[in-house]
């Protein structure tokens, strides 16, 4: 055990820190759930990419920098620590990107990864359907093979930022009459294709954060399938593992939020201390975020030792989503009577940051596999309890 950074790692940290200090926009960008905000985030992503800092742990040939996971954690610490904009293309970059690197052909990697790294292509996930939420194997959208392309029909839903995205990826039933997780194929679909209709859905905050996607005889080349036909479930589960495991919610994001929470507490100490449990919770938030970071470094150590991370990654998902709720509930307690104020209200200062975060934290235990499902997975696959 050696919990110190090597000189090379320290130098990398410094380089990232200096670049961010010089380049992070001084004014917070408007939310990426509006057209204008989305475009500004895209421009930021492209600037990041030009500096070689968009997808640091991808190979250089695909627009990355060839960093290892420790360097990635360092990058994230600096990125969030600098208050840089939230990443707008992560669903593609982390989830599809990882899948392409593992299962994609050389042509697919060359075609999709560099444009994803630069955010010239923005990606949306299209797994969920009206009757396939937690029960994702119940997918019914079809992709029927016709020569060198598939013909897609059906409906996806809850697709985050799909109204602004260029592409979507997800599972489609390519074998007619197949059941459950058999006969599904993993496809990448251009959202400007003929027959695609996108219908925004207003989220809790009133913004068009996600959307329904309708497919009406949409043609998709066979070359846009990842992995073998009918084997999409296997490919998708690898993606889901990454999503829950380490990548989607890096520790630094929560550590930065906790840093602000501690400041909020210190700035409002007299008022907050009227309820001693607030101080206790602030300390717990710090401790949890720290534990989450330690766990990430520990996981990286295990991966570097050749271990595989399996179903225990479900524990991660439960941990960060519950921590995020506690952080924001605590902030709302400290803000007290003015916590309800929207951005722009004369009495609201930093309040909107906390209110937005509080709303989004409500979704954490639901998306990326609801926490009840994660607990089932842990009980059955980690502890070996019998299926019901």
């Amino acid at each position, binding site marked *: 055990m050696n919990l110190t950074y090597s000189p090379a790692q320290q130098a990398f940290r410094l380089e990232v820190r200096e670049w961010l200090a010089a380049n992070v926009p001084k004014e917070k960008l408007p939310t990426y759930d509006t057209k204008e905000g989305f475009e500004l985030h895209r421009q930021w992503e492209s600037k990041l990419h030009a500096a070689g800092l968009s997808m640091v742990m991808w190979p250089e040939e695909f627009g990355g920098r060839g960093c290892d996971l420790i360097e990635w954690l360092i990058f994230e610490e600096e990125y969030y620590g600098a208050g840089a904009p939230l990443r707008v293309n992560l669903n593609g970059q982390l989830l599809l990107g990882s899948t392409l690197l593992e299962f994609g052909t050389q042509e697919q990697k060359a075609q999709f990864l560099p444009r994803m790294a630069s955010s010239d292509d923005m990606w949306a996930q299209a797994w969920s359907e009206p009757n396939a939420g937690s029960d994702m194997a119940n997918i019914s959208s079809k992709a029927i093979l016709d020569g060198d392309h598939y013909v897609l029909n059906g409906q996806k839903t809850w697709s985050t930022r799909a109204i602004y995205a260029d592409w979507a990826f997800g599972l489609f039933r390519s074998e007619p009459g197949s059941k459950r997780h058999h006969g599904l194929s993993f496809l990448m679909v251009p959202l400007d294709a003929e027959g695609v209709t996108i219908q925004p859905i207003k989220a809790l905050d009133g913004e068009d954060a996600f959307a329904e996607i309708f497919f009406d005889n949409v043609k998709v080349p066979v070359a846009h399938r990842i992995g073998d036909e009918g084997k999409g479930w296997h490919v998708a589960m690898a993606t889901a593992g990454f999503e829950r495991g380490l990548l989607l919610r890096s520790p630094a994001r929560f550590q930065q939020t906790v840093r602000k929470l501690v400041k909020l507490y210190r700035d409002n100490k007299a008022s907050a201390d009227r309820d001693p449990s607030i101080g206790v919770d602030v300390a717990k938030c710090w401790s949890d975020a720290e534990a989450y970071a330690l766990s990430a470094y520990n996981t990286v150590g295990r991966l570097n030792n050749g271990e595989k991370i399996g179903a225990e990654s479900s524990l991660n998902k439960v941990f960060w989503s519950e921590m995020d709720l506690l952080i924001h509930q605590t902030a709302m307690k400290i803000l007290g009577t003015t916590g309800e104020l929207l951005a722009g209200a004369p009495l609201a200062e930093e309040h909107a940051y906390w209110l937005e975060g509080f709303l989004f934290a409500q979704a954490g235990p639901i998306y990326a596999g609801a926490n009840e499902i994660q607990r089932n997975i*842990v009980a059955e696959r980690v502890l070996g309890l019998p299926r019901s």
Partner: protein
Amino acid sequence: MDFTFTEDQLMFREAISRFLMTEAAPEKLREIWETDEGRSPELRTKIAMQGLTALSIPEDNGGLGMGDVAWSLMTQELGYYGIPDSLADTAYVGAGLFSALDDSFAEKGQYLNQICDGELRLAIGHQCSPMVADAHLAEVLLLQHGDEVHLVSQDDISDVANPSIDSSRRLSQVTWQPTPETCIASGEAGAAIWNETLNRGALSVAGQLLGLAQRMLDLTVDYSVQRKQFGKAIGSFQAVKHHLADVAGKIEFAKPVLYRAANSLETNHPLASVHVSQARQFCSEAALLAARHGIQVHGAMGYTWEVDLQMFMKRSWALNNTWGDATFHQARVQDYVLNSQVDLAPSLTFE
């Protein structure tokens, strides 16, 4: 940056685990619980033969020279098997205390050698508790008097037993007289030794609590697979599954916190005290939830003397408030987070 253990550390843990599995089986624990002294000299001798008492003794004194990081694995095993012995207090906390003493203390080497060979019975009395564990059997006691460290022999104390709900703990109030002759460290040096000793004791308890949590989880998983109601194993019911998944989560996230704290203590990190208290909190939470959900899933069986779960629950409840009670550790973490002026940036985790 590497969070993993060495082959040596892992192999040693394996060996100890295999040894305790047979030597500290629940039947044996029950036997020892029932004795007056609450200790088995035979078990202690066998433990010494396994090399555990030599673990953190410096190599110059014939030991293995391992540190807090290695002990963070070993204490989990001691907790898992719930061994009724003051082994950790002697071979880990006590050895650390003797090692920290100035070389001008002439008998330092002799005591370290004795611990190494498993020949010394030791008790440590810290002001965090009015009781001293194992005082009735100790040949010598290390006792706190303000900043002073005193080394007192059994002949010079009188002890009054205070039975605990955890029969594997044997506690006494100790009456004794500090004299210049018994004082072996004082002033700043003494204060530093007591602070480090408290941290090491707390970390030892943290590791044991984590081991206890894992034991209670394992016992409960086994039970929930065997016990049938409504024609099915109760472990197939979702409410039961979620109880146990939550325990698994607490254990999983406590581990790296424990290991980091051990590393901080071993490397004299300026925040070692905060890290140790943080580890205590995580490991306590895991053990307390494992106990609560463990008894719940066992139903009335869990409320009996006969089912082994009781031994591990009671030990968890007791240890939760030793070497600094839960409130002490909560306060230490909270004080750092709320009252230090540090701007807690994400890059600070290992600084």
